[in-house]
């Protein structure tokens, strides 16, 4: 996955998002204090929010470019927000199948594989309000995966889980890479959770990227084409990307 933000600006309540970078990686972790603008950043990628200026590119598609704007429907992005946003009026089976009608799928994962890996077999006919926090999260993740996205965005997937569930949650996020081969961007305020699953780590503060580094433990193949230094704009560093 390649994500490029160029000259992107979005005014928020207390500060403005100012983002410039160009990264190729399979998994990106976004770290920062709560309120740093991480959720807004994800919403810009998903198309739920619209930046005031700038260019946003995902792989070889330009999602936003000043005037032009691709609506969320056509972005092929799976978004798992912090509040999960599971459909309360549908059961689990209908929830996870909702993305079936996505016009152009960019990935294809076997439904049985997802249900098995995320242990949803016994929950399929259950109504949503009966589910526990962890179960709901697996439903939201399955729904995103089964919609055939190019990329999955996860907002604080571990926040609401107790330590026992966190381990399971981490394992699930890793399966995105190991089993389903879907690139993802994961936001968390807990650093340790990101280091165990993401190739590249980005540090956010007050709406800006203040640091990028490759995660030594995981990133063998990640390439960082550009880093934004606060107030300095993009400085291009070209590194090779080995897709093995």
């Amino acid at each position, binding site marked *: 996955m390649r994500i490029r933000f160029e000259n992107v600006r979005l005014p928020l309540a207390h500060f403005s998002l100012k983002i410039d970078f160009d990264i190729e990686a399979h998994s990106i972790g976004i770290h920062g204090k709560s309120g740093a603008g991480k959720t807004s950043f994800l919403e810009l990628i998903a198309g*739920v929010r619209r930046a005031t200026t700038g260019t946003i590119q995902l792989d070889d598609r330009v999602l936003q470019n000043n005037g032009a704007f691709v*609506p969320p*429907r056509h*972005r092929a992005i799976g978004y798992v927000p912090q509040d999960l*946003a599971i459909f*309360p009026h549908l059961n689990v089976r209908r929830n996870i199948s909702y*993305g079936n*009608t996505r016009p152009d799928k960019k990935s294809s994962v076997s439904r049985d594989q997802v249900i098995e890996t995320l242990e949803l077999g016994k929950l399929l006919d259950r109504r949503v309000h009966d589910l526990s926090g962890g179960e709901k999260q697996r439903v939201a993740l399955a729904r995103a995966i089964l919609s055939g996205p190019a990329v999955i965005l996860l907002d604080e997937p571990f926040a609401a889980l107790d330590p026992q569930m966190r381990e399971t949650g981490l394992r699930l996020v890793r399966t995105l890479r190991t089993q389903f081969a879907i690139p993802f961007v994961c936001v968390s305020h807990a650093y340790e959770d990101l280091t165990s699953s993401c190739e590249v780590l980005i540090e956010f503060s007050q709406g800006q990227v203040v640091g990028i580094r490759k995660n030594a433990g995981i990133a063998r193949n990640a390439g960082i084409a550009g880093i934004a230094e606060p107030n300095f704009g993009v400085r291009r560093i070209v590194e090779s990307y080995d897709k093995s």
Partner: protein
Amino acid sequence: MFDQWQVIRFTLLVCLGSSLLILPFGMGLAWWLAKTTVRWKSIVETIVSLPLVLPPVATGLILLNLFGRRGPLGAAFRAVFGADVVFTWRAVLVATAVMSFPLLVRTARLGFETVNPRLEQIAQTLGASFWRVIFTVTIPLAARGILAGFLLSFARAIGEFGATILVAGNIPGKTTTLSLAIYSLVQLGKDQDAYILVLVAALLAFGAIFLSEALVRTKAP
């Protein structure tokens, strides 16, 4: 003078028909009012609410002028279909539809306003088109409000009198509704017969409003 059962049957059919007729338009307008942020929204709200606050006979007079044989809509209808609107069951349909429309819109709008926009956004990110979001997320979640609005508009249609009598007249067997029949019976001094119809009207209204309130009160799971 007239057959009580025919009157009740006719009233139920016409009111059901008019409530169903306005349902898609009312839902569309309610949705738009719940979502839009244009500044002149309040003007639309006011116009839609007019039949609710105007004296019903005032609305009836406006309809009579529009749908009369020489009125713009009445003449057009005649030209296309070769039939009249005023003094026929069509006029009853029009009168009840217009008078109950505001109640449908107001109640359905509340239903739409309770829909969490996050859910609609998520549906979009999952690849759903505009109409798919409307039919699979928005409407199911607003269903209670919509149904409550439908029931209220039905109840209002049953009780409609002022506009109906002006634009449809009170023709036994053709346009006499429950309300008009009660009025006629009283005019003739047949109060006892009128009370039976009053009871029927009360039962219908009670049932519809009770259901409507129940729907609005309980929250969806």
